[in-house]
């Protein structure tokens, strides 16, 4: 049964058929017909943002916390170009999004019309796939294909550009089950022979480590469950990238903490010293590997990834397994049990003794103060006072992001939303709203720095309008902290443009938006202030004035291997590689 309808109605119908409940968007001339259709129905909720970049980050937060695709609707020209940062962010972090953009009418394309931009040209390198639909008859099919491509294989953002005349014209609606399945069908089942090779390596390994990433989260909750089973069955130590936090619980006994540039000592040294590295859904990012030549020099490496181009891209591996993490882990466990596999008990016991020695260094130790709030202390208190609650955390980008990753524990997947690959300042506030829209009753906190937060602060208006009680926990050091840290360590303490002057009064700002503002600068008042934030029924802007010159450690200076990690300010004295900095 096909039904004839306008292109605009087709868009709304296709979204409904895809099970879309929420669209984040901003109207404009070239999408008015679609907004008219949205007005005349009640199934899809439209969240009016304050800037198109905010819409895309909200959709990312929504997608990351639900496993469903996030949907965005914006107008042509500036609407589309404002979405570009969010699209690039989603591409880097493999977040499924369907972005619909209006376009000038087909007969005007190429004439430099009002609010015309070459949207598919501009977004080609920052989407997984995009389409310009010039014929209403192909519109519904294209939207259904867009959802297919966004979700299948390695997820990512897709964009459908819809000229205004295509929205007005009528054609037959092609329902989901009648859509020609695109040839795009990535392989999800791993090669059993390669998996058998991995299982053999796991049996003999003396110093194994599981190195997990965002792919575990993208594969779905089942993958996290299987990862926990595998860790329990083998007793292997496990670490994760920034993107993979929560796939293995922070309270789990095999957990080493995050790895990488600001990762934990024990995690990075385990990576450096292991004899078998099993990469599960991570991509050997440069923030993880440091200097490639010295990256884990004595290990056999296996890599499980749904994207074949991730395998051997930067680090050559001994066993490459292309497939969905969940399906591959299920097969690994099946073979492990079927063979009655045992680990190398003696080797593993020795390895754990070594790891426990590294743990004993307590690399996250910092010098606390009774007069100034240390950012680490603020996060420790936030962690303690929210323990046991089903809590969703988003972050902006910088020092606070790394401290949040170090000091907050994640017990479950989909609870941690951060901009990893692109490092987009201004991500956290809109992302927190997207999470809150998806989980209206949950506790959603954006751990922010004041500089990042200001980049998309207009979205507080969205939070107020849609009653999203997001908590903005701003670690305010009046500095671009991470930039300042690099300038201190690597650019002769010349602090070029890295301090925040003329900051707003955040409490008054909160009042101006109509929400609650809290300011805290004394460690003694911190617990009460945090409780006040948690107890308030509505959005809160929490201005937490912290130590201005705190540096984030551990730190692997870039271009250095994992075993040349700096543990604290004392280590930065003199040349990198001197006694204070060289470890192991």
């Amino acid at each position, binding site marked *: 049964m096909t039904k004839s309808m306008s292109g605009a109605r087709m868009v709304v119908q296709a979204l409904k058929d895809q099970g879309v409940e929420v669209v984040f968007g901003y109207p404009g001339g070239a999408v008015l017909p679609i907004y008219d259709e949205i007005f005349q129905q009640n199934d899809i909720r439209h969240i009016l943002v304050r800037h198109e970049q905010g819409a895309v980050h909200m959709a990312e937060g929504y997608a990351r916390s639900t496993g469903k695709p996030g949907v965005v609707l914006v107008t042509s020209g500036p609407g589309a170009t404002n979405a570009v940062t969010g699209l690039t962010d989603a591409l880097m972090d493999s977040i499924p999004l369907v972005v619909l953009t209006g376009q000038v009418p087909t007969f005007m394309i190429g004439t430099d019309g009002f609010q015309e931009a070459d949207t*598919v*040209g501009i977004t*080609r*390198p920052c989407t*997984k*796939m995009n389409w*310009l639909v010039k014929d209403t008859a192909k519109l519904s099919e294209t939207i259904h294909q867009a959802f297919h*491509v966004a979700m299948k*294989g*390695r997820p990512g953002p897709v964009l459908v550009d819809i000229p205004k005349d295509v929205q007005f014209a009528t054609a037959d609606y092609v329902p989901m089950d009648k859509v020609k399945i*695109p*040839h*795009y069908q*990535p392989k999800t089942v791993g090669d059993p022979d390669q998996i058998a090779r991995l299982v053999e390596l796991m049996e003999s390994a003396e110093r194994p480590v599981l190195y997990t990433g965002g792919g575990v989260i993208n594969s779905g909750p089942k993958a996290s469950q299987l990862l926990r089973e595998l860790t329990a069955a083998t007793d292997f130590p496990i670490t994760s990238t920034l993107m993979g936090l929560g796939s293995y619980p922070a309270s789990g006994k095999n957990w080493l903490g995050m790895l990488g540039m600001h990762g934990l000592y024990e995690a990075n040294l385990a990576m450096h010293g292991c004899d078998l590295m099993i990469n599960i859904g991570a991509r050997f990012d*440069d923030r993880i590997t*440091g*200097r*490639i*030549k010295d990256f884990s020099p004595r290990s056999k490496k296996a890599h499980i990834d749904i*994207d*074949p*181009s991730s*395998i*051997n*891209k930067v680090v*050559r591996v001994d066993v490459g397994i292309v497939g969905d993490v969940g399906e591959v882990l299920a097969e690994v466990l099946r073979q492990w049990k079927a063979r009655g596999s045992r680990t190398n008990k003696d080797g593993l016991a020795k390895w754990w003794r070594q790891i426990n020695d590294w743990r004993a260094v307590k690399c996250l130790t910092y010098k606390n103060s009774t007069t100034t709030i240390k950012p680490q202390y603020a996060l420790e208190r936030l962690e303690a006072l929210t323990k046991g609650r089903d809590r969703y955390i988003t972050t902006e980008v910088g020092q606070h992001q790394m401290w949040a990753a170090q000091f907050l524990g994640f017990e479950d997947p989909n609870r941690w939303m951060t901009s990893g690959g692109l490092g987009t300042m201004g991500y956290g506030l809109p992302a927190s709203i997207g999470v809150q829209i998806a989980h209206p009753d949950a506790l959603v906190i954006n751990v922010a720095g004041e500089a990042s937060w200001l980049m998309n602060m207009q979205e507080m208006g969205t939070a107020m309008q849609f009653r999203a009680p997001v908590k903005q926990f701003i670690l305010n050091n009046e500095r671009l902290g991470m930039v300042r840290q*690099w300038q*201190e*360590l*690597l*650019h*002769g*303490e010349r602090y070029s443009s890295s301090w925040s002057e003329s900051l707003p009064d955040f409490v008054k700002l909160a009042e101006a938006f109509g929400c609650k503002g809290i300011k805290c600068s004394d460690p003694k008042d911190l617990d009460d202030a945090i409780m006040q934030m948690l107890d308030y029924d509505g959005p809160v802007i929490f201005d937490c004035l912290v130590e201005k010159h705190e540096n984030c450690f551990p730190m692997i*200076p*870039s*271009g*250095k291997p994992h075993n040349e990690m700096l543990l604290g*300010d004392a280590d*930065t*004295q*003199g*040349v*990198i590689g001197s006694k204070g900095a060289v470890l192991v």
Partner: protein
Amino acid sequence: MAPLNIKKGSSSHSAYDLRDPNAEVIEQHTLAVIVDNESGVLARVIGLFSGRGYNIDSLTVAEVDHEGHKSRITIVTRGTPQVIDQIEAQLRRMVPVHDVHDLTAEGPSVQRELALFKVAGKGAARVEALQLAEIFRANVVDSTLESFVFEMTGTPEKIDAFADLMRPLGLLEIARTGVAALARGV
């Protein structure tokens, strides 16, 4: 706190490791890429090469299956073996790409290019150009009293060789199609 004593300009100054970890032998490979013949597909493929810093030595594209809307893109590229593998993997994961063949790695292949040469000259030079064209099995497709246009099909090396010979004889212009290639046998 004392600043780190790092030599200015060393890669430690960068957020990235600036050294090429894979400085090794460069190979030339010919890739055949079967794609949906839709708008923007060539821009997508070329954008991959420019965006990721891969080389294109030669590129040809044309529809080869009208009913199935398929085009064949033949790309001659160069890089280390790891880069070539990466190019193939990056092409393979693009949505409108159906198939990728590394004709260099998969076995013997035939590679042909068509070229047109405009040669101007009089007297002995003109005669010599014609004789050389015969040796190279180039066809005369246009002639005036002062010029010829030769058409030749062959490997890129053969076309280079012919061009070298024509240069002193009055070569004015060359138009080349780029390489088209097929694997030998079935």
